[in-house]
């Protein structure tokens, strides 16, 4: 299908943009790139435009550039639906991820079940475990030498090990899970599908085991929970547990990767946070603003106007956190990274009812990861002769990030 054919008739030609999240400059894999900054120029153009070929399978979407408009879209779940079944349809199956791909009011029932498990207070109880995992990974890295591959040696195994802890799975299986996660998020399409099936089969088995032999963990809780007066179906338990895997690993790992990529290039910021670790809490919010990883996508449930532009029922609407977080109407000097920024209502975890369920845990993982890294690793830089690769897409990321402190 030609690109022109993918543009619906109701899209005015002047609103067809040349930007998309996958192929534009800095969005495709780029040596030593800065993909977030590369979205800033969108604020010089129209507040809403149509981006052809803006999803993994080549569909066009509207892009909502401004923070205030994204807030309106993401808060209005009746007009902008999350119901998509993206994950399962890639496997030839037919179920929405719970609660991500479910709309209110049903969405609220699932959230009420899960919210207490990931509330700010509950996350405080997880803090010692999160810190222990960070320390043990970093000490392992130090024992092996004076450089490491940050994503493979630290960020990814750190996020995966917290997931295993949350699900009550032994950390003996960390290596195996990191391999599946790597294939699922970063592999070639056939590897992604195979890894997703492996993870699902594992979680299905765990579900069946906990139905037979309950214990005190997440899976037991889910299998015993009553939702609207009934137990959850096998498919619902699957849709909920696989979402924790799909949503909570790559995003947190990528955030930590971008933070350390920035710090490796800014020795002054590194020294400041190392000398005054109490600044990490505020700085991590600025990193979340400057380097968010996600783009929520919705489907219009009716014809609706945004800035006088007609969005038709069925159109996809993308709200990249990167553009909202660099909106000059929302943030003073949005392209300046200010580690002391106080007013910082960024949208790294989205707005509206689908606000990231794991946001409180993700925040603690990022703060603790940075605190322990800076406390234990001396002044570090990008290893001379190596080149990190950054990329855009549905989840922004960085790889081949080799840090050196020799």
């Amino acid at each position, binding site marked *: 299908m030609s690109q022109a054919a993918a543009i619906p008739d109701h899209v005015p030609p002047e609103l067809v943009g040349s930007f998309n999240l996958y192929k534009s400059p800095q969005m495709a894999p780029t040596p030593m790139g800065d993909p977030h900054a590369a979205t800033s120029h969108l604020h010089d153009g129209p507040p809403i435009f149509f981006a052809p070929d803006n999803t993994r399978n080549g569909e066009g979407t509207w892009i909502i550039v401004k923070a205030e408009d994204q807030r309106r879209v993401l808060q209005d779940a009746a007009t902008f639906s999350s119901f998509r079944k993206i994950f399962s349809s890639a496997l030839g199956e037919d179920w929405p991820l719970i609660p991500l791909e479910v709309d209110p009011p049903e969405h609220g029932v699932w959230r009420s079940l899960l919210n207490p498990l990931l509330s700010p207070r509950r996350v405080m109880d997880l803090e010692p475990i999160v810190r222990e995992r960070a320390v043990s990974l970093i000490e392992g890295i130090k024992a092996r030498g004076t450089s490491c591959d940050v994503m493979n040696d630290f960020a990814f195994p750190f996020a995966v090990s917290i997931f295993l802890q949350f699900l009550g799975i032994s950390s003996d299986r960390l290596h195996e899970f990191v391999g599946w996660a790597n294939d699922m998020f970063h592999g070639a399409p056939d590897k992604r599908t195979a890894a997703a099936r492996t993870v699902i089969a594992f979680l299905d088995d765990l579900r069946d085991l906990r139905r037979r032999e309950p214990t005190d963990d997440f899976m037991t809780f889910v299998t015993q929970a009553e939702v609207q007066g009934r137990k959850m179906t096998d498919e619902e338990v699957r849709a909920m547990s696989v979402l924790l895997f799909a949503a909570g690993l790559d995003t947190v790992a990528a955030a930590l990767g971008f933070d350390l990529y920035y710090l490796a290039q800014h020795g002054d910021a590194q020294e400041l946070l190392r000398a005054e670790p109490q600044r990490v809490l505020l700085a991590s919010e600025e990193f979340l603003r400057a380097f968010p990883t996600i783009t929520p996508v919705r489907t219009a449930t009716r014809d609706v106007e945004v800035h006088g532009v007609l969005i038709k029922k069925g159109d996809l609407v993308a709200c990249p956190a990167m553009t909202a977080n660099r909106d000059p109407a929302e943030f003073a000097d949005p392209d300046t990274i200010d580690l002391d920024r*106080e*007013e910082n209502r960024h949208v790294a975890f989205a707005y509206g009812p689908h606000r990231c369920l794991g946001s409180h845990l993700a925040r603690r993982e990022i703060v603790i990861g940075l605190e322990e890294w800076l406390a234990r690793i001396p002044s570090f830089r990008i290893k001379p002769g190596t080149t990190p690769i950054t990329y855009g897409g549905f989840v922004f990321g960085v790889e081949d990030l080799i840090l050196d402190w020799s």
Partner: protein
Amino acid sequence: MKIKVFAEKCQGHARCWAQAPHLMHLNDEGYVDPGDIDVPAGDEKIAKHAVLSCPERALKLEE
């Protein structure tokens, strides 16, 4: 001074609670309790920070 709480707009970001844990009360799900909040003398600045921290604009300051 009062914090007006529009609880139906709260989505559980808990940024207000991070700013002012002694002023803002969250339920077991981590969402703000309904009901406006009287700000004790001396807490005006912290109340302002709490209000300005809400990504959903669910809080408003009233003099």
